[in-house]
């Protein structure tokens, strides 16, 4: 790809964007740090009059079991939903990789959940999962037994519910990526493998899967990171309940900042989470760049 001389252009556009981003970024970081080091109880004086308390707030957060639980829940939530999204999305894509009658119809319907407003999904499922609700009724029909699971009042079902709606919402994303990966795969090597006597299973594991690795890694990483920060669905479905059993990190943060009005604590938590997530993102960037490089050596001769 040829690079053109575009210095004038560069000096024109980059500053604009940089200014825009810094306009937000710098103050945010400032406020983040300030409020995590100054205890400010809202409505008592202006914020710049808040009392400097050093690392006390951080200590408070790090000593709060609720904080750790929120993190753990987020990790489990993100991990489980990502894995499920991947498995289901991949299976769907694999089944749909070859044209067949009705494929377009299935495709359009399968991508729909991704398009629904997340908040609405939460409310929707709230309706469905009510104890005396259609979902339980459906289960009762299928299994023939009376199923009256209280999806909101008990810890484990509630947690399963939020994982399920996350999977429902985002499987299409993984599905689209996987399908694109499968469609873009060269057909001839697979035919060659067939003639050489490989079984469909061998072809799958030895050829298709390795070639799909970059896309799979991409899907996993993108989904995981987004699931860590998922807020509207969890909030609208359970509000972190029952008790705090579905209190994932974003929910915890929201409650701390806006319901307890503990802005300082919220800032401190934000800061810590920011560091943790930044570390994870950094790792992910390295993994993805490595995959990208590996992909390029496969299809473009080196040297």
């Amino acid at each position, binding site marked *: *790809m*040829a*690079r053109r001389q*575009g210095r004038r252009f560069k000096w024109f*556009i*980059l500053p*604009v*964007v940089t200014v825009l*981003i810094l306009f*937000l970024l710098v103050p*945010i970081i400032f*406020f983040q740090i300030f*409020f995590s080091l100054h205890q400010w109880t809202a409505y008592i004086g202006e914020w710049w009059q808040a009392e400097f308390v050093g690392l006390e707030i951080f200590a408070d957060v790090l000593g709060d079991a609720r904080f750790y639980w929120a993190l753990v829940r987020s990790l489990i939530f993100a991990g489980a939903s990502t894995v499920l999204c991947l498995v*289901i999305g991949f*299976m*769907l894509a694999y*089944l749909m990789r070859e044209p067949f009658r009705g494929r377009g119809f*299935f495709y*359009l*319907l*399968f*991508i*729909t959940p991704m*398009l*629904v*407003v*997340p*908040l*609405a999904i939460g*409310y*929707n499922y709230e*309706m*469905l999962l009510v104890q005396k*609700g*259609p979902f339980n*009724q459906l289960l009762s029909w299928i299994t023939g037994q009376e199923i009256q699971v209280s999806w909101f009042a008990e810890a484990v079902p509630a947690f399963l519910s939020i994982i399920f709606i996350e999977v429902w919402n985002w499987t299409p994303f993984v599905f*689209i*990526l996987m399908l*694109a990966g499968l469609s*873009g795969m060269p057909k001839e090597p697979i035919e060659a493998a067939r003639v050489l006597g490989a079984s469909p299973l061998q072809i799958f594991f030895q050829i298709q899967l390795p070639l799909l690795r*970059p*896309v799979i890694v*991409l899907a996993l990483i*993108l989904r995981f*990171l*987004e699931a860590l920060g998922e*807020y*509207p669905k969890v909030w*609208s479905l359970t509000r972190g309940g029952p008790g705090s059993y579905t209190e994932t990190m974003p929910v915890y*943060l*929201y409650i701390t900042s*806006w319901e307890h009005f503990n*802005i300082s604590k*919220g800032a401190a938590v*934000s800061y810590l*989470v920011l560091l943790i*997530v930044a570390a994870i*993102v950094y790792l992910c960037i390295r993994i993805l*760049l490595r995959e990208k490089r590996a*992909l390029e050596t496969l299809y473009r001769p080196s040297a």
Partner: protein
Amino acid sequence: MNRRARRRLYGVGRYVLLCLWLVVVIFPLFWSVMTSFKPPYQWFTWPPTWIPDPFTLNNYRVAWFGELLDTRYIASANVQTVFPALVNSVFIAGTSTMLSVVLGMLLAYGVSRYGILSERTLFRLLMLRMIPPIVVAVPVVLYYSTIGLLDSYPGLIIIYVVTTLPYSVWMIKSFIDEIPIEIEQAAELLGASRARTIGDIVFPLVRSGVVATFLFILILTWSEYLMALTLSSTNISTLPVALSKYEGSTEGRLYGWQQALAVGVTVPLIVIGWAIHRHLVRGFSFGMLRR
């Protein structure tokens, strides 16, 4: 079993599995739409009402036009007309998407043709976007309240532009990359100016991709909830925020109205999504797919 029979068996099995997931996908949507047509006494029954009988459009009238049709529920519902929220949503989503795409185009062209940022840098910037917005929600609110941008249109729009910019840059860049640079060089050799080359040659070729990017980001900004909630109070509530107001009632859930609103908010997105689905992949893949 001969090959043809084996293939047919596979075909049947495929349909079965796909239909299973189809049911999972459709069931909640079906229920949502049905509920939006149910009269209030059918919202919360046991056994649950699957098909409303009679179908009623009242929920839509209440939710979208603010008609107070059922006085029993007035006290508990914050039923205001949803019209301001609609206007806000259209304005905010439209403006921020437009700005994001325009800026995105400029940056994308710069990265693709001029290399103003290396791909690695762009990649890293993109990944930064992956940091959950909730984490910066608190400081943003504080910052905005200090400089008076809280509950203001520019405030939210700026946030949306900055958070969607990575997507728009990346997607448009991948569309520009698809056009061989020789085409531009040919145009320039024929005497076309930079501007003309871009406007007359490059842009028409990426137009469909840009439209797809626009619509994709529109979906994101339209359905965004967290930032809209925290950064607005009275002036700039968007539709998702309005939707959440429906749960504030004390007399059980106002399912019908809520779903009528939800359906109305979501249907445009579904239509848009179906229209652009072909283009989404090209933008999404972040270079991980071999074309």
